[in-house]
């Protein structure tokens, strides 16, 4: 089970893995600001530096928060909701 060993190896070094991930994120945004041309942009708003990073992060947070809010309006309910109590 070499694959499980690899996962264990990474899990034991969670801090380092996290740091690498944050580094990748920062590098990605930086490269985008410095090197990627905006010629192919469809709208003006995309010219904001690292626009798609902001879009991804804000979008994700919005989806989670709004969905949870919606779920707690009464959409999420107990698992036996549909079970017939008469039987």
């Amino acid at each position, binding site marked *: 089970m070499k694959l499980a060993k690899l996962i264990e190896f990474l899990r034991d070094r969670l801090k380092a893995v996290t740091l690498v991930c944050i580094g990748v994120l920062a590098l990605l945004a930086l490269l985008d600001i410095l090197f*990627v041309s905006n010629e192919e942009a469809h*709208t003006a708003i995309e010219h904001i530096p690292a626009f798609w990073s902001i*879009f*991804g992060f804000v979008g*994700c947070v919005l989806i*989670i928060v709004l969905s949870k809010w919606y779920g707690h309006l009464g959409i999420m309910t*107990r698992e036996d909701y549909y079970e017939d109590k008469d039987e």
Partner: protein
Amino acid sequence: MNSFWLHPSLILILGSLLLLLVPTRLKRGYLLLIPILLFARILTMARGEFGQVHILQWTLVFGRVDALSSVFGYIMSLMCILSTLYGAHVRDDWQHIASWFYVAGSIGCIYAGDFITLFLFWEMMAFSSVFLIWFRGRRESLFAGYRYLLVHVAGGVALLAGMVLHCNAPGNDWSFNLLDVHHPTVAIYLIMAGFILNAAVPPLHAWLPDAYGEATFNGSVFLCAFTTKTAVYALCRGFAGMEILVVLGVIMALYGVIYAVLENDCRRLLAYHIISQVGYMVAGVGLGTQMAINGACAHAFAHILYKGLLFMGCGAVLHMTGESKFTELGGLWKKMPWTFVFTLIGGLSISAFPLFSGFVSKSMIVSAGFEEHKYWVGFLLLLASSGTFLHTGLKVPYFIWFGKNKPKQETWDRAGEPPWNMNAAMIIASALCIFIGCYTPYLYKMLPYPALAAEYHPYNAYHIFETLQILLFTGLGFFLLLKKLVPDPTISLDMDWFYRKGWRVFLWVAHKPVQAADTFIGELYRVAGLVPLMLSARVAGLFDNEVIDGAVDGFAESIRGIGRRLRFAQRGQMQQNLAFAFAVAALLILAFLWYSNALAR
């Protein structure tokens, strides 16, 4: 009839009938042979119109082979090989027969050149796929199957009504081509309702998570590929450029994402993401440009593979552990690491990571939206793809294979890598997902407008950076808000509430207003009894006692009887009843068609 043309569905139908006769030791080989023959037949089929049959006044076209039907036929038959391989160790022949009939129905729809043929295969799909839910054998799956069937029969009736109205209108015939989407009639809307019900467009979508979460572990792998994508094909064929589909598609894409946040069952979560992904395709059909139709077909192609792969991964977890709820799973990386990798590949493909299949297909639809200057379509679809990665790329793998939750000891002991054939199916599907993402001409050459597709280059710096930023920063959001995403042991109410709880409203109506009316009428009788028309009152009373009460009591008694039978009905008996009911319905339909055409002459 023109010269003999072997319909690909016939291979599956004959193959499944012979399956019962094949000796056990040859069965696995046979199970692979038939889908491979199907695939070979589809690969070798020449373009053109074949299999024309004249019945009464109609010309049925069983084989319209053109660019659009070929790409769908190709991927459907390829998926049939993979799904059959995935479930090849299942000993129950009837499961294989049901799934092959289901695929045969889907392929029949794709090559159908007229509405009657389309409808026959359309119904064949519904009536064979329901067995993939029933064979799970749970009490819940029995009910889920009935709901699935009832919803699809309702959709079929809408489709049939639309067809009859449309095709009998002056100037129309029964051939199935692009409809007049800019001047839709009631008939066209009815046909569209039948199609979008199968494509699971809200509010006609609740059957999908209900059924796919409840089907057998391999049944869902079949289900996730065929019904919705056959509907996408039908929409591409008949409704390209129908404006309302753009709006519906975008709503779908986001709707699935929202419900996926709330979902605790991994297969139901994937089912909500089918709705989300089919939303892209429906929006593509609505945009209707060549680029958008290319995108819808490409995305359907890629989707069938990665969604199949995801259902294979979660199906493997269900098959091995008996659990599919996040709250009952966790930390499985030690026991099923390879299943994790395959599921992750499916997750990266659906999220449209560069080098994976979704990247080269989804972006076509998004670009088509931007090119049409429908910016809101582009941005909202990109928002949905952030949600896709959030759930399928992160939530599913994290809460099954990692997470803080510890499964029960017996779940843990049962867990392990699945049998070789399941692994093999997942390896091939993973390889195809990566291959499509890396080598674009393979898919692009098959699309309905290959010349246009060849000019499309998804791999440019701007697009790669756009996608990577959206996805990776979604990942950041996921880990920062991880606590909010820990699944709760709940279910989420959806549109199925209306037919699952609606009967209570019916009961309430029966209890309250009908009873009040009854009391009121009784009072009237009493008052009327005071006036000197005693005789008529007595007659009325007699009528009330004997006829109305008798009828009401008798009706109630028979409903109770039916209810009692339904409650204790064994599967076999009900299936016979349904088959009988369907046969009668089919005869009635044929009689009606013949009659209406005879009138028209």
